[in-house]
């Protein structure tokens, strides 16, 4: 997998926090979508409890994943489509690259797809001479700017209209304007040419339905419908977990997906694709390929602690409420997936040790669970990851963290079971803390190592002059006198 930058979390987070434009954009986004989504769940005719129903549907689908994928593949093949099961990112990418090579593809138009970001498809296609054009407006903007998405649904949220204006003047040669409708129209014009000329359409999959044998895609712009209708070949990439058994279950998930993603009752375009066009049809691709990607998902499936993560349908509602994401932005998470979903899924897909800072950085406030359209217990899995990092786990390639923490707790246990010694140390600390720099109300500004990390961004309360026990005894004495 290319482009994993999870080791740089702390550095990138600091950069995000220092960027006032990003902070303003994110707080606007969270203000609108965070609240709106909660309200949209409440307004559901079935009530917000529909999220629990959805959770049960997802659990059942995951528990029967083999059967659902077999059925999906059999149906699509029966309709003349091709299905490829890829164990790894490399297999998925080389299948796509091979199709492109065989069909002599020069230009590919792409709908927004996180799984293709995950497997690193674009650079490989580009290396064999295929021009790959992102067509979601946000994705197009960041592709022109040579950047990566910072939000699953709003990938260019970190760009201002002025930045977009300058970019379009430079790359599209249009007169300078900061008017969003005019900028959008410039992109519409440029991309329409690409759509009409492209040989290959690439899309992700929001959800597939096994019973009927269709994948489905959701978009507001219509770019995915273009990419799956006009070019002669369509390849769809799908994380292997994105399937449900039946249409009635699909219906529930789609409604929650649209509410979680963008506070909509339904996206403007929902397309169900079951195969290539038929011989008498005028449009639609003559070849349809579905690439089902494992790439580490079966490991999550095998581990009861993390199986629940496969219920996620990447609506990104958790990003819109997360206080950490809202301050550091999506780039800090160093991979295709950001926010709380990224903090769990990125380490599991790309290496828990490498991505340890992602789960340590989240606050465990629980907002993500309340916002999750599938009612996934993200905070529980963040804790599981932290426990795994502390205790070590060979199956995830994590060694225990030297036992320092364990020894510290043992020392603490020893101290508190010897009250005399404990009080003596407290008194010593009360005296020694005077040597440390103090701030308002006597709070300690900086602690010496190994505790200095704690006071890097906050103060530490001082040890009281008098211990609680001494104070208690004194008060009782006073009360007795009164």
């Amino acid at each position, binding site marked *: 997998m290319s482009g994993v930058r999870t080791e740089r979390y702390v550095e990138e987070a600091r950069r995000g926090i220092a960027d006032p434009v990003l902070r303003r954009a994110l707080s606007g986004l969270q203000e609108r979508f965070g609240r709106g989504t909660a309200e949209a769940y409440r307004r559901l005719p079935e009530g917000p409890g529909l999220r629990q129903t959805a959770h049960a549907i997802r659990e059942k689908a995951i528990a*029967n994943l083999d059967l659902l994928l077999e059925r999906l593949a059999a149906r699509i093949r029966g309709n003349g489509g091709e299905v490829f099961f890829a164990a790894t990112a490399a297999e998925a990418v080389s299948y796509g690259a091979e199709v492109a090579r065989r069909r002599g593809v020069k230009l590919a138009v792409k709908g927004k797809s996180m799984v293709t970001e995950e497997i690193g498809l674009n650079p490989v296609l580009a290396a064999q001479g295929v021009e790959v054009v992102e067509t979601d407006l946000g994705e197009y903007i960041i592709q022109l700017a040579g950047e990566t998405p910072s939000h699953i649904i709003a990938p*260019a949220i970190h760009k201002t209209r002025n930045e977009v204006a300058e970019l379009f003047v430079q790359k599209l040669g249009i007169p300078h304007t900061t008017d*969003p409708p005019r900028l959008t129209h410039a992109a519409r014009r440029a991309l329409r040419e690409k759509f009409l000329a492209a040989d290959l359409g690439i899309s992700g999959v929001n959800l597939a339905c096994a019973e009927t044998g269709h994948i489905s895609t959701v978009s507001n712009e219509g770019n995915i419908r273009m990419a799956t209708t006009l070019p002669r070949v369509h390849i769809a990439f799908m994380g292997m977990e994105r399937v449900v058994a039946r249409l009635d279950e699909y219906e529930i998930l789609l409604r929650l997906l649209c509410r979680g993603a963008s506070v909509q009752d339904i*996206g403007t375009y929902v397309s169900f694709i079951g195969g290539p066009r*038929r011989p008498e049809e005028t449009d*639609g691709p003559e070849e349809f390929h579905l690439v089902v990607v494992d790439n580490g998902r*079966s490991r999550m499936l095998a581990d009861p602690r993390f199986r629940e993560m496969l219920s996620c349908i990447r609506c990104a509602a958790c990003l819109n409420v997360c206080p950490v994401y809202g301050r550091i932005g999506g780039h800090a998470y160093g991979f295709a997936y950001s926010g709380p979903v990224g903090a769990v899924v990125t380490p599991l897909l790309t290496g828990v040790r490498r991505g340890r800072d992602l789960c340590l950085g989240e606050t465990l406030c629980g907002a993500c669970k309340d916002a999750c359209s599938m009612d996934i217990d993200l905070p529980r899995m963040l804790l599981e990851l932290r426990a795994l990092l502390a205790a070590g786990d060979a199956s995830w390639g994590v060694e225990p963290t030297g036992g320092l923490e364990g020894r510290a707790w043992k020392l603490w246990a020893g101290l508190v079971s010897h009250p005399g010694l404990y009080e003596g140390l407290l008194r010593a600390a009360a005296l020694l803390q005077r040597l440390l720099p103090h701030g308002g109300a006597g709070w300690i500004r900086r602690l010496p190592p190994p505790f200095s990390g704690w006071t890097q961004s906050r103060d530490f309360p001082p040890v009281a002059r008098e211990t609680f026990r001494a104070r208690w005894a004194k008060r009782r004495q006073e009360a007795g006198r009164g």
Partner: protein
Amino acid sequence: MAEGRGERLFFETLRRALGRPPQATRPAEDLFPQEPSAQDLRLLAAVSGRSEREREELVARLFAAAAPLHLQVEAVAGFASAREIVLRLVAEKTPEWGGEKQLVAWRHPLIEGLGLTEPLARQGIPLWITHPLDPGLAPEAAAEERRRQRSRIAASFIGVTTADFCLAETATVVLRSRPGEPRSVALLPSIHIALVRRGQILADMKELFALLRWEERFRGEGLSPYLSFISGPSKTADIEATMVHGAHGPREMYLLILPDETPDAPHGRPAQTPSSPEAGAA
């Protein structure tokens, strides 16, 4: 390329992860029911037993849902008033990409009922009618015919389609893919006009899926190879969260609801010659 060794290994890994014997497959009947559930039957009964008053309520709900989506809905009395609306749009709107005014429409009785051919011909405005490909065509000839139809669709500023269903709850038109009814007619032109009969309006997706799964008339075709839900014109909010209509698909969308009985249907007019330029621009 299908069902090779790689695929076997993929499924073995998957079953092992699920805690199942890696080679064994299981019956899947309980996952894919063969009979409608009680809920499905309730939905089917609701659709078939809908009273006139309930249908009126559905239309009202459709109007309410369409407004915030910028989907313009008109309930018309008959073909004549629908034709007037289309002709007014033809007169008022200008082609987004320049060039002459041209229209493209599916070959469909409901659209033929509009009788657009003559008034457009009088104005010298071409009306392209799409048609299915002859399966006997040689590959090169078929490719050539596809290219021809596509360039006409792309050159048209208005595309007229019907719909299989319409969902009141979300103001959604539902199009199944069928030979002769290219989906790009609802995609490439800047303005999309969809025609439905009032009886095609359902309450929501639940009803639609119950019909597509269990109702004899619709089951055979099912979802078809490409089912589209379209709820209003194309839009984006990717630049500073400002809503803009017309991202890639149509900038404007109109839904014309015809009554179930249209006494003013023209008769004796044969279907338009397939995709012949003479059809409109004689």
